[in-house]
């Protein structure tokens, strides 16, 4: 089985944070935003960088326009998910990463566009956006706990059982002694909850304990003088199987939580869009047209 590409290379979150950091650094350092945003509102209009960085200035307005467009990209992801016509356009996980990327960079640009001045109705839109972004992170946390195929569709119970079995066979084929396999089994027993031990906290944050116990297992294998190659392989397989078994154990609960998350994530998006529309409409009406500075 070929290992999947590195998580960070394909992570929209990582790229989104990186891109936001670069843009923020450019505005804050290169364009003098640090001093500008620190200037009190009462006199900020007379700062030398005001013409450039104000919300209706060349940089501020562009940030607002680009940020708004990026915020709209997740709706394309939504359309890709729902409209049959678009189902052939790109893999859904890729769409998700693009969604995540734009969902991080867009709000970051909007934040710079606001010049940290949160007034009126449009502030409600901004804070809605912040909540949506934060809930997005929570959604992402739940999403990765639902095992999926490469194309993005959820795996069935049978497929999951098959995967778990394949991992068990790979462990046995690793050629370690029976006592090592017993040790791995004890590890699985510790990290994969039985039905009566299932809890919401363990669902959301239990993976942290998996990592800790995995390090204990690794240390035990070292003491048992398992050759390094075998030991790494065994730990990898044990980890993959333990996580898979945990996902399978919490699958039903995770799915229900994810559906509930949509209820929280989506409505604020509409509120955000509605207020942004009013904001953009008023701005355009009063003549604050992009690229006419």
């Amino acid at each position: 089985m070929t290992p999947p590409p590195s998580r960070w290379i394909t992570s929209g979150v990582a790229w989104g944070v990186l891109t936001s950091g670069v843009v923020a650094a450019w505005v804050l350092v290169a364009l003098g935003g640090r001093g500008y945003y620190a200037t009190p509102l009462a006199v900020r209009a007379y700062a030398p960088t005001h013409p450039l960085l104000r919300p209706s200035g060349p940089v501020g307005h562009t940030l607002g326009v680009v940020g708004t467009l990026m915020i709209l990209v997740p709706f394309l992801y939504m359309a890709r998910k729902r409209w049959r016509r678009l189902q052939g356009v790109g893999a859904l996980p890729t769409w998700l990463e693009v969604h995540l990327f734009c969902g991080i960079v867009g709000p970051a640009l909007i934040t710079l566009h606001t010049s940290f001045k949160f007034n009126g109705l449009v502030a409600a839109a901004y804070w809605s956006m912040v909540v949506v972004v934060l809930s997005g992170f929570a959604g992402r946390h739940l999403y990765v706990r639902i095992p999926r195929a490469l194309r993005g569709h959820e795996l069935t119970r049978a497929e999951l059982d098959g995967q778990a079995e394949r991992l068990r066979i790979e462990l046995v084929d690793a050629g370690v002694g029976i006592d090592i396999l017993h040790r791995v089994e004890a590890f699985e027993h510790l990290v994969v909850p039985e039905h009566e031990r299932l809890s919401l906290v363990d669902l959301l944050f239990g993976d942290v304990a998996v990592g800790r116990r995995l390090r204990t297992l690794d240390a035990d294998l070292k003491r048992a003088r398992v050759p390094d190659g075998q030991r790494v392989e065994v730990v990898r397989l044990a980890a993959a199987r333990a996580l898979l078994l945990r996902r399978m154990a919490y699958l039903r609960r995770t799915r229900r939580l994810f559906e509930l998350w949509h209820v929280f994530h989506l409505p604020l998006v509409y509120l955000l869009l509605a207020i942004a529309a009013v904001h953009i409409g008023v701005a355009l009406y009063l003549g604050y047209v992009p690229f006419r500075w």
Partner: protein
Amino acid sequence: MRFPHVAGIGGSLLVLLVSASGVEAQLGALVSPGRLTTSHAAVEGLGNCQSCHERGRRVTAEKCLACHRPVAERIGRRSGVHKDVKDDCVACHAEHAGVEGELRPFDQASFDHGGVTGFALTGRHAPTAEECAACHKGRSFLTLSATCASCHEDVHKGALGTTCTSCHSTTVAFSDARTRFDHAKTSFPLTGAHRPVACTSCHRDRTYRGVPFASCTDCHRDPHRRAGNAATPGQPAVRAARADRECTACHTTATWRSRTVSHDTDTAFPLRGRHATVDCARCHTQPALKVKPRSDTCAACHADVHRGAFRQDCNACHNESGFGKAPFDHSQTTFALTGAHEKATCVACHKRPGATNASAAVEFHGLSSDCVSCHADVHRGELGTTCQSCHSTATFRLPGYVHPRFPEFFAGRHAAVACSGCHVPDALTGPVRSDQPAVRVRYRSTTTACASCHRDVHLGQVGPGCERCHTVEAPLFRIADFPHARTEFPLVGGHARVACAACHKTETGLFPAGHGTAVKLSGVARECSACHADVHLGQLGGDCASCHASDAFRLPDYRHQRRSMDVFLVGRHRQAPCEACHKRVTGQFPSGSATAVQYQIDARCASCHVDVHRGSLGPNCGTCHKP
């Protein structure tokens, strides 16, 4: 899955509807990017957006200036802060920055008040540049004008017009307006002592117009005015004396101590001589010159040092050139002043005996014309009372006095001797009367003996007849040409050229007049050896004259006197010099052991010549050799 979408869209519409259903101001606050400043509070709210904003044109200057008409007017005039602005009001005046937002950015430090407003903050205005509110008390900066009265109270109540700068400047305090104001432009130019006077001394109650100045008494009190403004008989006030005249007839603005009073024409007492230099107050002693001093008698001012001894007026003797220089003609008296008497001050003679205060001691009556009434008789009456027989008034010295007797004695060097050189004071021998000089000089019975004046430096060696050697003509009694031939030792030859002191040495010892130090004149030894050393050391005896003469010691033509030498001094011996035989040797001589030329020598050949035959032919060289 449709629920979230439905809920979101529905919720959003609900929020918007709830917002829109609120009052207009609240909705405006929701749409507004920020509250307006208090200045613009009246246009807060959704319905007022277009009070400033224009559809599609953002914020236009037309909208701003529609309200801000004074600014529009100044922009039109291109004056003040807005003289160079374009139509972009919001470039300088930013709104929606909150209630406390700054609408008028203003860098106080760099603001050019003079250039922008045309009213430079100079002098005392300069510190106000630090604090705008010191002048701009209202919100608007446009309410002030460049007129002084817009800030300063017109204490003159408009009486002096509005051009304050004609008197005041910003460089000095209002109270020091004098530095600016040119009083010369008024009808009363300030001169002299009027210049440093404070303005308020004349301009009381800040009244600067209509101040009376035609008469000095408008400001000055008249010190000449006596009580009741009336002159007292006998002591008329100056004011009364010139009632119809101006103060300026006497005084100038330079000082009250004016000397412009013409005492000659204005008074009965012309000031002449030293009177002209006397300070007014010396005579006008009454306070504030109220009382006119009497001028009919000198005694009104001057004390009579004569204490009424003279009945006539002082002018008979004195005039204004000074009391000390009284032009009194002494020749009117029995004692005309001549010679040194002319230079004597009056009090030198006219003084009361024992008085210490000269001015109180002057006594002009009863003074005798005898010399001794003023001069002490140093001769104590020895020469009588007729001093004039010797002295004149020119000087007590008698430069032309010729002794009537012994003219030969008073000739020569004696002629130049001062009288006191011979007529020396006597030593006091007894009590002296208080009215006579303590010292007595004798002029009669003075001896002409040399020893009465001169000390005998020879201590009696030559007796009392000094004139035998000395004359009165020679300076310091030197004897230029003493005739030594008169002595027992005439000076001839080399002796004639010898200085006296070479033989007559100064000795200390017993002389006829006693023990002392003097030049030895008598009893000088005449032997050669008394003066000359015997270089022959006794070889030739004491009779030097048998060989030497007094001309010179050298003997160029000496001839050996012994006849035996005639045989010896022949041939080469005759040609030999003296020293070939008489050699200088060191040995035993009659006078002692020393070095001298040997004159007593052996005539044998061997004493000079070496015997080359070593005695083989005997000592008689003459048998074979000839000199």
